[in-house]
């Protein structure tokens, strides 16, 4: 019954890494959309909105991703939805991303100099136009390096959804370990695949940071 840890097993791991990436992309898309709302709410003119966004960030950042996963997973089934675990996985990772990205993007929006707001206001731009044409384009440059850095965190945290039997990279590692009984080799290969995904992103984040620091004025 014990199978050797060979090329087929490694191919299965690489294939499962595809699901890790799918989860990351989904969480980035949904969580990113939500994060934009959170970031804008965080700098809104109405105080209650700002406080609400701050509370959202505080709660999500004070809770393990694992709890977000369980709350999504059991909360959905409690509400009567019989959904596949991958849905709960996507929801929890999106919630997680919304808070951390929201905070990163808030910082980026706030780091645009005040004068840019005043100048655009004096050109009679509406608040929406100010964001669209003046503030957000500048924020994107500032936000890009830490956003790529956060993507690394997101990829790594997808490993946690293995506990609700979503067969991404880590779960695939467990499954293969169960038939090969070579835990050190299997999980070392799993780690190397994560490294192959994350290391280039870490480098990219650092390079972007360096490049933007040179070009930024003041």
């Amino acid at each position, binding site marked *: 019954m014990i199978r050797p840890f060979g090329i087929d097993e490694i191919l299965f791991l690489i294939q499962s890494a595809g699901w890790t990436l799918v989860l990351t992309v989904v969480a980035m898309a949904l969580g990113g959309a939500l994060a934009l709302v959170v970031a804008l709410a965080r700098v809104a003119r109405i105080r209650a909105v700002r406080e609400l966004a701050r509370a959202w960030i505080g709660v999500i950042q*004070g809770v393990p991703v694992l709890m977000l996963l*369980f709350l999504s997973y059991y909360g959905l089934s409690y509400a009567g939805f019989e959904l596949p675990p991958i849905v709960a996985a996507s929801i929890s990772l999106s919630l997680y991303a919304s808070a951390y990205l929201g905070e990163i993007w808030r910082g980026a929006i706030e780091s645009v100099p005040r004068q840019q707001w005043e100048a655009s206001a004096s050109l009679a731009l509406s608040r929406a136009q100010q964001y669209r044409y003046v503030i957000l384009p500048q924020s994107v440059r500032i936000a890009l390096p830490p956003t790529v850095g956060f993507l*690394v965190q997101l990829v790594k945290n997808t490993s946690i959804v293995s506990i609700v039997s979503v067969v991404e990279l880590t779960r695939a590692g467990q499954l293969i370990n169960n038939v090969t009984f070579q*835990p050190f080799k299997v999980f070392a290969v799993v780690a190397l695949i994560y490294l192959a995904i994350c290391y280039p992103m870490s480098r990219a984040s650092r390079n972007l940071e360096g490049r933007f620091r040179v070009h930024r004025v003041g």
Partner: protein
Amino acid sequence: MATQLQFAPVFAEAPILLEGLWLTVKLSVGAIVLGSAIGLAAAMVRSMARPGRAWPVDVYVELIRNTPFLVQLYIIFFGLPALGIRMTAEYAGLLAMTINLGAYSTEIFRAGIESVHRSQIEAGLSLAMTRAQVFRHVILRPAVARVWPSLTSQYILIMLASSVCSFISVEELSGGAALIQSNTFRALEVYMLVTVMYLGLALAFKLVLALVGHAFLRLDRAPLGFGRRFPSSGASTAP
């Protein structure tokens, strides 16, 4: 099957949660102390070694920072026994948390050390301080004070990451939750309660770490360290 939320059966098992909470605190504090020691030592090596000599530190930091904590935990708990190194789940969890935090705090301490201006070090040396004295009195405290907010965030992140130790059946807070869940079948109630407990724990850590910064790093006047990024005393004002 929309039934009512029932917390009573969960509260009946509260002792398991409190024990789990205590283990989470112990694991976190242990990892914070040990991991910070590793991080500080590695950051010293990194900033003092000659160029090209500190690559083992870089490899350590990059390996840990670019792989999931869960996989690190699996390698330590399932993988190391294959090489003849065995330990209980609790110690495996503590070791994984320590190694993980060590890598992240290396980068944080390094940023702090690099933020101390050269002229401060030269001034110290010109006062006939030894290199060790300069490090202790001129570099260390301002460096740690300056990165204390980042360190605090990282400490809270490792506390939250400890929940993953339940995957190797460590009965810390989320491990205790899993146990109650299988006893009572009130999954949602258990995890709602435990989520609130983690939130409370995160706030408590934040408060305690702010007080520690306040007491030992002279992070002055800022109300418990919230809201201000840089201390004004005890730190040099590098241009």
